[in-house]
């Protein structure tokens, strides 16, 4: 099954709450890549970990973040996604 889409309207609080639930070792890598926009290679060098570990941590950090936000959307009754997504 595809992952639930991230809601159209995302509040800062939603993001921060969702971020808090991401394990810290994954959270840091996600922030370095998606906020600080460091390359995977730079992250690997900075943290002194293999490139594969960076990618693994990114995957394991981003996925729960999306899941948490989809759950927030469901709780608030926000209809996730666009009309096109509704056609699925």
């Amino acid at each position: 099954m595809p992952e639930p889409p991230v809601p159209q309207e995302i509040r800062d609080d939603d993001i921060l709450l969702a971020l808090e639930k991401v394990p810290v070792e994954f959270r840091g890598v996600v922030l370095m890549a998606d906020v600080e926009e460091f390359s995977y290679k730079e992250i690997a060098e900075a943290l002194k970990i293999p490139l594969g570990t960076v990618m693994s941590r990114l995957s394991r950090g981003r996925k729960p973040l999306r899941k948490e936000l989809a759950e927030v959307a469901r709780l608030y009754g926000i209809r996730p996604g666009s009309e096109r997504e509704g056609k699925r």
Partner: protein
Amino acid sequence: MNVLNFDSRQCGRVRRQLDAYLSNELLVETTSEVLKHLESCEACSNELESRVRLREALQRAVGRHLPPERLREAIHQRLRSAQPRFLGGFHTATWALALASMALVVVAGQQWLRVQRARQLVASALKRGVADHLHCAIQAHNYPEVASPPVQLRKKLGPQYAGLLAVVQEKLSGFQVLEAHICSVPDSKRKYVHFIVRGQGTILSVILTRREGESFPVGRFVEAAASSGVDLYKAKPEGTSVAGFETNDYFGFVASDLGQDEMVHLAASLVPALRNALSGRVGTEKAAARAFLIASVCGGLGPSY
């Protein structure tokens, strides 16, 4: 369009690569495969948009709620605590300190990476403009002594860029456009839209080249001059003054042996009009709104020359 293929193997493979695609971490061939799939799969395109929204929201939220001053303060506290490890055994209760601790690596440990990258980006981008100016205009002397007729120059530029000729001529008061064409420098496939003009006793180049995922970094690391609502970057490599700027899809350069301030002044007068002319062209060039979104998100993955 097949909206039922979202769970196909191909969709699954593409979705596993979407984040790397957004981070510009895929090989060129893989990027092409992803783009090709996105063009024909609405479900995956929606998934891409969803991830773009998340990334933008993440940047916005962290930026608003963890301003740099607070981040730095938290980092200094962290440094004073002389905690050798920041990952293992790290059990802070607040998200802010967690963010700061993780950012310790970024700001305190690897800050030089950003500075270095910013400087390299600016220098390498500006050198491209200078290289084309020196190679094409100065060394190869690829311009006539008497200005070519505008109709001939427009033909050389082609329909994509013919409209820019009038902009350059109008905005560079006191200069005459001698030549305009598409060119390149040795050992590079990069194409340059090159206007060679004469004035103030010298030859000056106005050059545009498509950004290929690169961008001038924003921040204090570069020498920038805010003018006409745009940042202008200046340098003087190889004795040539150059002022650089960027539009949505292009780097632009004004280069000559005049002073750097003069280059900045001329670039400032050119940029708004060039941006308008280019944005109009780009708007018609890209057929699909989704393709435009993808290109803008990925920093210039537009059609190549």
